[in-house]
């Protein structure tokens, strides 16, 4: 059986996390291709329902990338997201889904290496957790 390759949906804010991902590219840093990025203006646009829908639709994990505290382009959007994800993770845990599958990370536009590291770490963690959909080894 081939090794389980987790599938990740990554919601990245345009100003920090997506720019950090771009910098990882410009710096030619290799990292696992498991995360499909979806760019949004602000991590504050990310709705808990999107995260859950992604898990339901086949993702093994969801990454939300926003600006570091104090750096949000829209000043306070990342704080809202932090609280939403905090509460969502608690609710997922109560339902019996590992909260580690939902990850909120602060990644600045200068942190290309950090972006690559975050994705690599997340992939490793999801491999350890195993597939959410019980059909590991696909893809």
């Amino acid at each position: 059986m081939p090794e389980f390759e987790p599938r990740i949906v990554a919601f990245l804010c345009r100003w920090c996390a997506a720019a950090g991902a771009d910098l990882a590219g410009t710096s030619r840093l290799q990292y696992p291709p498991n995360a499909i990025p979806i760019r949004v203006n602000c991590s504050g646009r990310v709705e808990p329902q999107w995260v859950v829908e992604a898990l339901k639709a086949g993702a093994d994990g969801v990454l939300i990338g926003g600006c570091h505290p104090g750096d949000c382009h829209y000043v306070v959007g990342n704080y809202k997201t932090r609280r939403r994800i905090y509460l969502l993770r608690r609710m997922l845990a109560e339902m019996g889904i590992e909260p580690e599958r939902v990850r909120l990370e602060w990644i600045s536009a200068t942190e290309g290496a950090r972006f690559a590291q975050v994705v690599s770490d997340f992939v490793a963690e999801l491999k350890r957790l195993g597939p959410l959909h019980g059909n590991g080894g696909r893809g």
Partner: protein
Amino acid sequence: MPEIKPRIGVFVCHCGKNIAGTVDVAKLAEAASRFPGVVYATHYEYMCSDPGQALLKRAIKEHRLSGVVVAACSPTMHEETFRKAAEEAGLNPYLVEIANIREQVSWVHSGPKATEKAVRVTRAVVEKVWGDRPLEPTEIGVVRRALVVGGGIAGIQAALDIANAGFEVLLVERSPSIGGHMAQLSETFPTLDCSQCILTPKMVEVSRHPKIRILAYSELEEVSGFVGNYRVRIRKKPTYVDPAKCNLCGECAKVCPVRVPNEFDRGLSLRSAIYIPFPQAIPSTYTLDAENCLGIVPLRCGKCAEVCEAKAIDFDMQEEILEEEVGAIVLATGYELYPKEAMAEYGYGTVPDVIDGLEFERLLSASGPTRGEIRRPSDGKIPKEVVFVQCSGSRDPEHHKPYCSKICCMYTAKHALLYRHAVPAGQAYVFYIDIRAGGKDYEEFVNRAMEEERILYIRGKVAKVFREGEKVVVWGVDTLTGKRVEVRADLVVLAQAVVPSPGTEELARKLRVACGGEGFLKEAHPKLRPLEALTAGIFLAGAAQGPKDIPESVAQASGAAAKVVALLSRPKLEHPPEVAEVDEELCSGCGICAPQCPYGAITVDEVAHVNEILCEGCGTCVAACPSGAMSFRNVGDEQVLRMVRAALEVEGAGV
């Protein structure tokens, strides 16, 4: 939603070998041609090149494309390029999206997995375009006038710069004269030029400027509207003196029987009820202070009017409410000193010979209550020993203000130095925590005070100040030697913390501008947008935003003015249409959205309303809206969910 059958075109860029070296572009284009909604897919060497753009334009026309996905480099590179090209081919630019397969795929992955990810990424973006609607930027006119609130040096500078660029300016000042605290100062650091001498020419320039209208003795009452289109109500208090007739003879003040503390001299002298704050005041007129006059309605005294040969006094003058329209607002409401009354350790302001920095400025000033001779308030004696206390109320999070007031190190050095010049035999002590002399020629200035002028700098905090007979006793600790210090001084000058001027928070509320924890007006971004408030069209200048010295205030004022000029020079304000919107049929007016918006773009009555011009497009309110009445143009929930599902679809990967 009625589903119009989409006709999406996908254009895969090789970017030379940058993409094609890793991603199988032919395979990607082939897979894309089978995506739902796609009617045309191709790949080309350099999509951003002229032939590449021509290819795009031709395909839009030939295949009657309803949307375009360019799978290429990061959207930060060429999104604009392709949107413009599409627009030239007659396609609404907001129906063009980029799938980033270079920075986020080909440069970071390798092997067949890279192609697979490129397929997924492109597939997701096709879904986005499917859901995109054509949009038009919002346009709105601009009222070509500015309002400047506060007539200190920052407000004066901003008003002059805006007016000199050719725009009308309303300059609103709360007190009877412009000039602010700078008018009260004796000399300025580090050059020691006379404050009035450099300020008054600017004040005169303001008063003579054909584009500037000064509204002194006036306050901003109400603000509505938004960037480019503010409506303001200004309350102008009656001065009971017609400035056009007043010839400044001063006879009225002489006969006035009232004596009250003179604010300009910080209470160190008295003034009459009819007065001019200082001789160079602008507007150049006397003002009758109704609060302290014996009586206007009914008239109880009237002596001033009797002696006024110019017949300038008009007891029937009424308060005026002015309604004005402006396109931009500069807030330059300045600072005040933290009250001595709050300093338990320094006698609560009850010891007459314990004064604050501005009081000392008045003692130093040639036009001050002592005509520039340093005489202490209690008995008018020339003090032989003076203690200057820095950080009084500053850098003390437990009892007072946590922040550094920034200007005190410098003005205390100046005070001590000027004292030594005025009283050569006198001894000056300065208690300090640290010396912060960051600024051009500042360090040199402090060194001069320390070394050349024999001023005794003692590193340590003053624990207690109290009166003992004719002396003011200062207890402190010299932290460098660890010894207790007692100075039996004649005068103590407290470098009180700089705080926002009274009413700043109320004003901020009216303008929907944020205040920081300490009440200073908050800038839109601490590093990148220090001259403006988060509320579009409102700019900040001077110490209202945080403690600042004169050069910094002037620089910020000029910067804010440049921003105002840039705003007012635009023929129309265009705003990107990718913003939040409300479905009024679904909105219950619960109001959860409004506090999420840092820009004050949302108002709620029966339902919520988004001001498109103010909305910056973060979408935080949309995610917070529980009922789903709020949505985000071209980043709808259903759209994103389709992107997610498409990205995860196994069959869709097609490789």
